[in-house]
């Protein structure tokens, strides 16, 4: 109790909360973007795509940044959910928003739970490497499987995905889809923020920092991990469905290690364990590649430049871009009040 009071007092004295400021800035920028870019449909489309991918990046951040689960398979949940809604559109001719988005989330959740059972809830305590390779293998195997399965389009993937419907309105890329993606991103963000700043978040932070110690204290560490992993899978599923509807296309490459790794990079580039970091990372990387690919002099080798930039960030600035403005103290953050009853016990 005493420490909690102390923490609060110390926080009260802080003149400036950088993380909150960054969050507010990002919200303002994303809300203002369509007003500033009212005649640039192409940039709105790009930004919509970026927001959808940043939901994927957040799902990775929940795993890695907050719970220390090295998941190299977030694209798997993303891709499978994207395929499921594309198939539902193709074979059942159904794409009503209230039905398909929960379906996609459920798909991601269920699939991630199955993975969690195998990778995390086994008899032996899994190492970080085991989980990393387990998820990577899952992602890779799924990509191979799908690219050979003719019912789901094999190497072609699924194109001409049925448009997402809200009443009689059909979402095609543009301002309405932007608003939808922003809304989803906002809700996911608030939900994640609530979780990581709650008492559950405190346990997760403990697991991330020192798993064994938490286990000695009596926490069933793997169950907590499985919980977060499934939740992250659900978010990735939502992101995959939105992507599929927005692009009108989903292919084997959307569930493979390539995209899984890209999600990792978004998160690291922006700053893991901050939630807003992955969003900034996604925006920065996508904008950078959009811009770099248009400069004549470096057109041939811009992906290499991009890769080197990432390498430098990962090696010399492990806390990502946000690490430049947000202190470690603030990044670790403070947690919601303890339950009174349990405190009395």
């Amino acid at each position, binding site marked *: 109790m005493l420490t909690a009071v102390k923490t609060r007092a110390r926080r009260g004295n802080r003149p400036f909360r950088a993380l909150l400021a960054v969050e507010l800035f990002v919200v303002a920028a994303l809300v203002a973007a369509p007003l500033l870019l009212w005649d*640039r*449909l*192409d*940039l709105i*489309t*790009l930004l919509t*795509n970026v927001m959808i991918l940043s939901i994927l990046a957040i799902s990775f951040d929940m795993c890695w940044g907050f719970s*220390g689960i*090295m998941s190299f398979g977030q694209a798997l949940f993303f891709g499978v959910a994207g395929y499921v809604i594309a198939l539902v559109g193709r074979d059942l001719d159904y794409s009503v928003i209230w039905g398909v988005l929960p379906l996609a989330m459920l798909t991601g959740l269920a699939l991630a739970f199955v993975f969690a059972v195998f990778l995390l809830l086994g008899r032996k305590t899994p190492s*970080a*490497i085991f989980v*990393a390779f387990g998820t990577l293998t899952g992602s890779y195997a799924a990509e*191979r499987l799908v*690219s*050979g399965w*003719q019912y789901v*389009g*094999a*190497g*072609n*993937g699924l*194109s*001409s*995905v049925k448009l997402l419907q809200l009443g009689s309105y059909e979402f*095609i*890329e543009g301002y309405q889809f932007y608003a939808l993606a922003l809304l989803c991103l906002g809700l996911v963000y608030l939900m994640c923020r609530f979780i990581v700043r709650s008492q559950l978040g405190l346990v997760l932070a403990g697991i991330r*920092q*020192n798993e*064994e*110690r938490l286990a000695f204290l009596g926490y069933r560490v793997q169950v907590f991990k499985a919980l977060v992993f499934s939740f992250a899978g659900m978010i990735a599923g939502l992101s995959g469905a939105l992507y599929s509807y927005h*692009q*009108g*296309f989903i*292919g084997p*490459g*959307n569930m493979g290690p*390539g995209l899984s*790794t*890209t999600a*990792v*990079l978004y998160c*690291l580039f922006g700053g893991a364990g901050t939630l807003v970091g992955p969003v900034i990372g996604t925006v920065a990387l*996508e904008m950078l*590649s*959009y811009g770099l*690919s*248009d400069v004549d002099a470096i*057109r041939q080798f*811009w*992906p*290499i430049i*991009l*890769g*080197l930039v*990432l*390498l430098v*960030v*990962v*090696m010399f600035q*492990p806390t990502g871009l946000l690490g430049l403005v947000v202190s470690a103290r603030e990044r670790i953050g403070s947690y919601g009040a303890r339950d009174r009853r349990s405190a009395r016990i």
Partner: protein
Amino acid sequence: MNETESTFTTSRRGLLGGAGALAAAGWIGGTAGSWLLRPGWAHAAGPIKMGIATDITGPIAGAGNADWQVAQFTVEQINKDGGILGQPIELYLEDTASDPKIAVGNVRRLIQERKVDVVLGGITSAMRQAIKDPIVNRGRTLYIYPQLYEGQECTKNLFCTGPTPAQQCDKLIPYLIKTVGRKRFAMPSANYVWPQLLNKYARKVIEANGGEVVFEEYYPLDQAEYSATIGKIKDGKVDCVFNTVIAPGLLPFAKQLAESGFQRNGGVLTCVYFDENILNFLPANVIDGSYSCLDYFQAVDDPFSKQLTEAYSKRFPDTKYLFTGGSAATGTSRGIKFYEAAVKETKGDLHRDAVAAAMDHGVIANGPGGGSSMVPGHMHCTMNMYTAACKVVGDKAAYQIVDKADMVDPREC
């Protein structure tokens, strides 16, 4: 405690560094770049904007670069002769990077940012299927697809200017069976829609002509190990391989087939997209003696085709991307010419419906390999078809024409 923490950070950094290295190795693609070819002069109504979406990078780049060069060449010629009714064509290129998921985003740039009047491109059928929706339905833009393909693409406002299975198989397969004398066919294929549907058609033609299909198999596009397939070819006494494996799996397959001595022992390799450009994908020794059937080969000696390829070689001296049939280059040239003819007919009206209506009965008198005309209501066109055998001379692949059919009907839609 310190120890636990330090191992933790090591593995953390190690994994993450690995991810960065992967990105540096170019394993992780992003959006790819765009190029622009501006005409040297202007017109009051502004230029006609034409978008080219093709594979400048990735496994199919060997064909995509040829298409881009041919598009530049054809448009430059049109602009030099005064454009279309005085309006010059401005050419925009987006790289589809041999990857449909990148392509979807890039093609949208053509539509939304460049606001092009027509999009021409896509090589593999996987690519066409991925980009046709953003172009034709969501983007409400005219789309011309230039590559030989499996047929059955009957989307409104999508015109196909490459050969269809009927155009490619109806002459080639009877020739292989009756003249070359090969009867036992194997169909190793990449697993996507083009090989599946083409094989279905080819199998019918093979069986109707007294041949036999020993096996028909599908592999992931990037499979690198084909010893099981080669074994089956040997065991099944296959004497003709009807190949529909494409890059990147093509090189390992063709090499392993040649190394197994298949051709040395009298086997024949045939593939309907092999052309003079194939040396961008395969070494010369594995394609020597193979058969193909396309709308144009450089050995075709009608004066117009000769003059066209000569002008092209002058524009791109020493290029390794040639003006050929199997890489969609001839389809690209034909598509641009059909578009030109259509806009002439609409008297400069660039609206999609008007241009599409004019294209529907378009005729072009001359082109690589001969003229061509749209079959009204069918979105496909007739063209001359040539069956040819590959002879490697020095480091060049030359094709000798062994059979020709005039103005073959596409028989689609």
